[in-house]
């Protein structure tokens, strides 16, 4: 930030809040990313636990929010994976609520978007990928590999289809994580570019102040778009996790 205050990449820097020091050449510390993760968990707990502590038959407004949130995820799992996948409800609900709240908290000024670090999204995607792989192998045994042989395929194209299916299976965690990361990164960079435009224009005098209204309006519009994108990407991440889980339950088709 020293030379250029409106440099759009600066907002993604992970900074130490409480450094713990180095252990074996690896730096440990409580960072702004960690702070936002903790804040996300606190907000989710507040939404889900506080209104449901005293459950009523006629729900209060906040209890209704928690119930709608819950049944939204239930409907999502039942629609894309089926009822037997309800044992993975905690995983899907955690992914969806964590990403939704952290994306929205990341839009606050001076906060940090957890999903704008590729290490976070790739670990979440690896979690989903390994869950599908391990549960699929445990449930179906070697029958899980029928996933790579779609039914109703003539024998002479199987040698072509199987490698393609295999590669597409392996590339799932890559696209799963890159999608969320790229969306968050690109959205925040665009916001910072328009914010930088306001700062740049306001330094050139009165005319600059007048024209700075244009990027300001654009920034407001983009911020509301980012609210939509943050929710949509959390939803997409959770739906794709459900779709991938579907393969663990029904590999052969």
């Amino acid at each position, binding site marked *: 930030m020293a030379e250029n205050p409106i440099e759009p990449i600066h907002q993604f820097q992970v900074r130490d809040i409480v450094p713990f020091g180095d252990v074996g050449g690896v730096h440990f510390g409580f960072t702004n990313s960690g702070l936002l993760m903790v804040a996300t968990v606190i907000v989710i707990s507040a939404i889900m636990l506080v209104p449901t502590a005293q459950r009523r038959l006629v729900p209060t407004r906040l209890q209704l929010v928690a119930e709608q949130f819950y049944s939204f995820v239930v409907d*999502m799992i039942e629609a894309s994976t089926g009822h037997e996948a309800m044992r993975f409800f905690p995983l899907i609900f955690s992914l969806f609520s964590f990403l939704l709240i952290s994306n929205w908290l990341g839009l606050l000024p001076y906060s940090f978007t957890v999903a704008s670090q590729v290490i976070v999204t790739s670990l979440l995607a690896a979690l989903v990928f390994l869950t599908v792989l391990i549960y699929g192998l445990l449930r179906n045994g070697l029958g899980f590999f029928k996933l790579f042989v779609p039914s109703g395929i003539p024998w002479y194209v199987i040698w072509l289809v199987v490698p393609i299916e295999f590669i597409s299976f392996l590339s799932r965690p890559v696209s799963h994580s890159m999608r969320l990361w*790229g969306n968050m990164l690109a959205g925040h960079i665009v916001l910072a570019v328009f914010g930088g435009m306001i700062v740049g224009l306001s330094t050139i005098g009165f005319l600059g102040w007048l024209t700075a209204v244009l990027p300001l309006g654009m920034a407001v519009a983009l911020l509301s778009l980012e609210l939509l994108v943050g929710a949509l990407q959390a939803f997409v991440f959770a739906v794709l996790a459900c779709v991938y889980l579907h393969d663990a339950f029904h590999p052969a088709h």
Partner: protein
Amino acid sequence: MDPEAARLMGKYIGAGIACIGMGGAGVGVGIIFGQYLAGALRNPAAAAGQFSNLIFGFAITEALGIFSLVIGFLLLYAV
């Protein structure tokens, strides 16, 4: 041209070329939402049931645009 300037030039030109890929993803996302809307206006009763398919197709298509964006970012900030 000195090597450092050539390196910078290649980096910026490459990042610009990488972003062309996003045009294809834009066409794809437009087709997906356009077709969904056309189908939904023909048969509004079936539209709600296809919403998750819409989002799934959108996500798969959009990932390709994101890949080219990632290449652009890698060239700009990691090379």
